[in-house]
């Protein structure tokens, strides 16, 4: 399904697509009462209490004052209704504010100030610096001569760095005045919620020269609720409006999580209901029999000889009313109140404030605190969760020479500093790749110092390290990169960026050296994504050794490589690349395929090693939680060796004599199957010994195991207290959580980055670390904490307290109700 957006066409699309009115409201003033009551009466408990309350209005059968049921019932309904009303009023208010904000929109060729809710698909919207974007726009012009603008997307994905957005090639250079009159069509998919993807095409109508189809990506859009920064103005065509924007589509109400306790309470309520019916039947029949045999003889009671037709029902119904309080009416409300207090205790806890950043812990989901006390499995991410995610360049290996091995810091290694000083060609190439093979944006601050805005911590570390090695990435002016090296300025023209994806595991840039006009491909990536593509004859053994050595130390490694391109080779490839990036279907896969054609015959320059320190208190936390009987799984996208090293250093697994690591690997189904069975056998044998056995599995083997040998793998998962899964994708993380959940374990997932979001949402309890990879995980999570070590307090203190308190409260509620009820039955017995 596609949508065709006609730019600046005032009539055609008005009826087709909704306007830009945002509405998150659930109720209106008129339908609030009926709708809210309807919703509340959807719950079985409430229906039951209403029935009881109505029966009490019949004075013949009511043993107690009707107010004793109506009072609490009305109170409870009023409490939940007013809470709903308050929430809805707030939503209405914020919607109204957003809807009535004034924006500049082109109408009949003239720029007008209108309310944001009147924007229609196809309108051209103008934004000034620091304006909030009112709907999803495709950029067509900016104040920047190169067509760049910067946006802050923190409201969308929680990432605080500035992102560059660029206008499509066709719109480049269109005059400011002409932008008002521009006409054309944008062919784009129907609204979805993927904020990282926008596969569309743009075609301008004459007189705008270019009649070609121009591909659009997410880079050409600015999405609702972003902010325009560092750009004087920008304008764009509205493509998705109102609740159909990417943000609006992703809003949706998440499925409420139910705790084990809630399920238990529901079951108990059902059981008590059945018990109540039995009691009512037995006592009702006994009462009727007694009445007919005995009570009629009691002349002083003066029973009428002929009763009304419903006479037989009276006594059972009376007992029903007496028994109705067996089910405590207040339990839901009191539990809700108490649970929100637990959440507040978590927010208030001064021992869980991260004093480095001043971020306190926060419970987003107030309803599931007691599940914290029942966690059986913790799935943890590595980078940023166990480690600090503060990358520091530590060592490197350039053309077989190791730097930084003695001092542990290559930037202080005189050998390297000397090599840079004498401009040793290998080293210069290496440092150049470090400096420019990235998507970092240098920003000059007022004091003249250069600040780097990087999306990835590794790139930040590399660029900063390069700057310390006197290769300063000074300025990015559109496509011209300026590097200052030993006092001279070197300029490169940036031609293409082959972006990093988790499948390719490498990124490359194609640049033109402005000094000698040479085309160069610069690449960096994981060792298995670079080393196999080295040109024939290059010795990569030293690099493999280096990678292994660094991984042993728990360092993150990247291989840097380059290749000189011939001009025609580049031009030819450039066309293919352009074509691939304008496909609408399977664009990602097509691009990867095209990139593969260029990224070959590398000359590998060297290996960098970046240190990511463990967070404070991680080993102690893991040990304490393991002693509490909680099992840990580490799910990481990192290399196996690095993962194992980190696991060893944070008490995750024990070293050889005490612990044992079992590897599951293999490239084919058979291999994986065999190794799975071998591991399972060992696991069964050693399960009686006091030995820490853990298994290690990589993403590839995991894929096969989950697909074909799910049963075996599940059995293994139940047996093993510890597991390390490396090279796993976000969806595999979620699958693993799902697997453990299906075995009826209570799982907790903890992570910090966007790649952990799915796992966090999938788990019974999601904990986000508000870390350096943005707030995405923390937003999706039920609890957000500042540091991994707070997990100990969260589970062992707050979880335990909450569990005990909820258990006590609900047991006491039922006990109290039953006692009151039995007293009433006894007193009525006669």
């Amino acid at each position, binding site marked *: 399904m596609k949508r065709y957006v006609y730019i600046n066409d005032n009539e055609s699309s008005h009826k087709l697509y909704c306007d830009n009115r945002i509405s998150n409201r659930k109720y209106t003033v008129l339908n609030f009462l009926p709708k809210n009551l309807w919703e509340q009466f959807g719950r079985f408990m409430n229906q039951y209490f209403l029935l009881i309350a109505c029966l009490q209005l019949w004075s013949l059968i009511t043993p107690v004052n009707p107010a004793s049921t109506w009072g609490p019932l009305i109170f409870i309904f009023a409490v939940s209704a007013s809470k709903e009303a308050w929430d809805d009023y707030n939503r209405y208010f914020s919607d109204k504010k957003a809807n009535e904000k004034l924006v500049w929109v082109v109408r009949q060729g003239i720029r007008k100030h209108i309310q944001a809710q009147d924007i229609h698909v196809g309108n051209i919207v103008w934004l000034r610096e620091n304006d909030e974007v009112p709907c999803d726009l495709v950029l067509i012009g900016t104040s920047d001569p190169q067509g760049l603008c910067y946006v802050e997307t923190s409201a969308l994905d929680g990432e605080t760095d500035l992102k560059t957005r660029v206008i499509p090639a066709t719109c480049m250079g269109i005059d400011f005045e002409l932008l008002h009159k521009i006409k054309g069509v944008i062919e784009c998919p129907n609204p979805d919620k993927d904020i990282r993807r926008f596969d569309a095409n743009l075609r301008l109508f004459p007189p705008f020269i270019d009649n070609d189809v121009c591909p659009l990506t997410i880079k050409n859009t600015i999405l609702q609720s972003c902010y325009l920064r560092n750009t004087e103005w920008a304008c764009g065509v509205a493509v998705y409006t109102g609740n159909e924007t990417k943000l609006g589509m992703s809003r949706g109400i998440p499925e409420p999580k139910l705790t084990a306790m809630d399920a238990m309470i529901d079951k108990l309520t059902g059981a008590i209901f059945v018990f109540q019916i039995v009691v009512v039947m037995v006592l009702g029949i006994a009462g009727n029999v007694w009445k007919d045999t005995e009570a009629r003889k009691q002349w*002083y009671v003066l029973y009428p000889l002929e009763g009304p037709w419903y006479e037989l029902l009276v006594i059972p119904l009376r007992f029903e009313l007496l028994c109705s309080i067996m089910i405590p009416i207040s339990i839901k409300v009191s539990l809700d109140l108490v649970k929100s207090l637990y959440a507040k205790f978590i927010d208030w806890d001064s021992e869980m404030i991260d004093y480095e950043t001043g971020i306190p812990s926060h419970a987003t989901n107030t309803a599931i605190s007691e599940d914290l006390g029942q966690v059986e499995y913790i799935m943890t991410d590595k980078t940023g969760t166990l480690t600090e995610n503060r990358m520091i360049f530590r060592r490197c290996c350039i053309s077989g020479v190791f730097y930084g091995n003695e001092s542990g810091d290559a930037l202080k290694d005189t050998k390297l500093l000397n090599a840079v000083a004498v401009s040793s060609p290998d080293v210069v190439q290496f440092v150049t790749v470090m400096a420019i093979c990235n998507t970092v944006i240098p920003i000059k601050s007022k004091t003249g110092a250069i600040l780097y805005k990087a999306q990835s911590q590794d790139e930040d570390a590399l660029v900063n390290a390069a700057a310390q090695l006197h290769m300063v990435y000074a300025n990015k002016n559109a496509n011209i990169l300026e590097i200052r090296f030993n006092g001279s300025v070197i300029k490169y023209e940036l031609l293409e960026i082959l972006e990093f994806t988790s499948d390719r595991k490498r990124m490359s840039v194609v640049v033109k050296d402005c000094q000698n006009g040479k085309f160069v491909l610069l690449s960096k990536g994981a060792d298995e994504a670079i080393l196999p593509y080295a040109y024939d004859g290059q010795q990569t053994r030293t690099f493999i050794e280096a990678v292994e050595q660094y991984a042993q130390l728990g360092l993150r490694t990247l291989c840097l490589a380059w290749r000189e391109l011939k001009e025609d080779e580049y031009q030819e490839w450039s066309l293919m690349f352009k074509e691939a990036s304008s496909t609408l279907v399977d664009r990602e896969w097509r691009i990867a395929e095209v990139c593969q054609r260029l990224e070959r015959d590398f000359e590998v320059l060297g290996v960098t090693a970046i240190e990511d320190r463990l967070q404070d208190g991680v080993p102690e936390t893991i040990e304490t939680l393991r002693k509490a009987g909680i099992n840990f799984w580490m799910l990481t996208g990192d290399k196996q060796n690095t993962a194992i090293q980190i696991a060893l250093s944070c008490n995750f697994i024990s070293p050889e004599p005490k612990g044992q690591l079992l590897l599951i690997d293999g490239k084919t189904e058979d291999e994986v199957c065999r190794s799975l069975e071998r591991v399972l056998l060992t696991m069964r044998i050693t399960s009686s010994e006091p030995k820490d056995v853990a298994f290690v599995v990589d993403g590839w083997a995991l894929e096969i195991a989950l697909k074909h040998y799910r049963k075996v793998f599940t059995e293994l998962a139940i047996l093993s207290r510890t597991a390390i899964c490396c090279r796993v994708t976000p969806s595999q993380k979620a699958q693993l959580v799902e697997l453990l959940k299906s075995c009826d374990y209570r799982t907790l997932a903890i992570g910090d980055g966007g790649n952990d979001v799915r796992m966090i949402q999938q788990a019974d309890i999601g904990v986000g670390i508000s870390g350096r990879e943005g707030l995405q995980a923390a937003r999706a999570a039920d609890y957000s904490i500042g540091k991994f070590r707070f997990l100990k307090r969260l589970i062992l203190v707050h979880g335990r307290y909450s569990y005990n308190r909820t258990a006590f409260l609900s047991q006491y509620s039922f006990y109290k109700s039953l006692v009151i009820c039995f007293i009433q039955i006894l007193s009525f017995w006669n």
Partner: protein
Amino acid sequence: MSETNSDRQRRGDRESAFYLFTQQRLPACKPVLTPPWVITIYFLVGFIFVPVGLFTLRASHSVVEIEERYDIECVPSQFRNDKVSYIQDDSVPKNCSLLFKVDKYMKAPIYIYYQLENYYQNHRRYVRSRSDQQLLHGRNFHGTSYCQPLESSNNRPIVPCGLIAWSLFNDTFTFIRGKALLKVNRTNIAWKSDRDHKFGKNVYPFNFQNGTWIGGGKLNPRIPLSNQEDLIVWMRISALPSFRKLYGRIEEDLDVGDYVVVQLMNDYNTYSFGGKKKLVLSTSNWLGGKNDFLGLAYVFVGSSSLTVAIVFMLLHLRSQR
């Protein structure tokens, strides 16, 4: 060594009740039930309860009580097979006499009770069938719907209305020792609060028991309700189906070997539902009437707690931790 202001303030904040509450650090105490503690407590309970129980039992036994069932004996032998027709037949004389032998010295005041068994004054229809407002305000109060099914006769509300008043107990007793009539005090048998505040001084039972349904006793229409103490006693309904109600007091001591003849009018119908009627003479002391339950309960709880204490102690000694 000087403390700065902000330090002091911060310390103050840290000690404030709200801070302690938010950090879940409010001081609390909770008994730790270690075996020695538990055993001590059980022993203590045992040592206190058993003597108290024995003392109470003794007091209960010092109360002299004579109880006599009369509903069967008072039926003439020709009616023994059809007691209901006997009680409903107005032409048959209902008088009857009982002989009490005093075995123990009884000190005045001696309380006279009538006891009814299998009589459900707590029945739902019965309990609700009264109007407290009418009892206090009489004819001035009209809402007698509470009194169903006996609220009016001849379209005028009955005073007092309702089943309870209607079924008033109406057996009467006179007591003779030797040749002389024993003086029975029939005043002050109802609660003072009932007489003063719940039954009206100007309410006269002018149309009581006039209707088609004839129930129990009648009332003197010239005496206001606040002085009708038999009615007031009767209207304090009992919670259990077997109960005693005060009839009067004998204000003379009875010696051992005295014979007391009771002349009674056996008017009240308990035969149709198989109830029992008894006459009780009883002295009283600080415990009230004769009642072994309290003493037995004390002795039982005390001795079982002693047993538990001993068992726990043996267990504790055998397997000490």
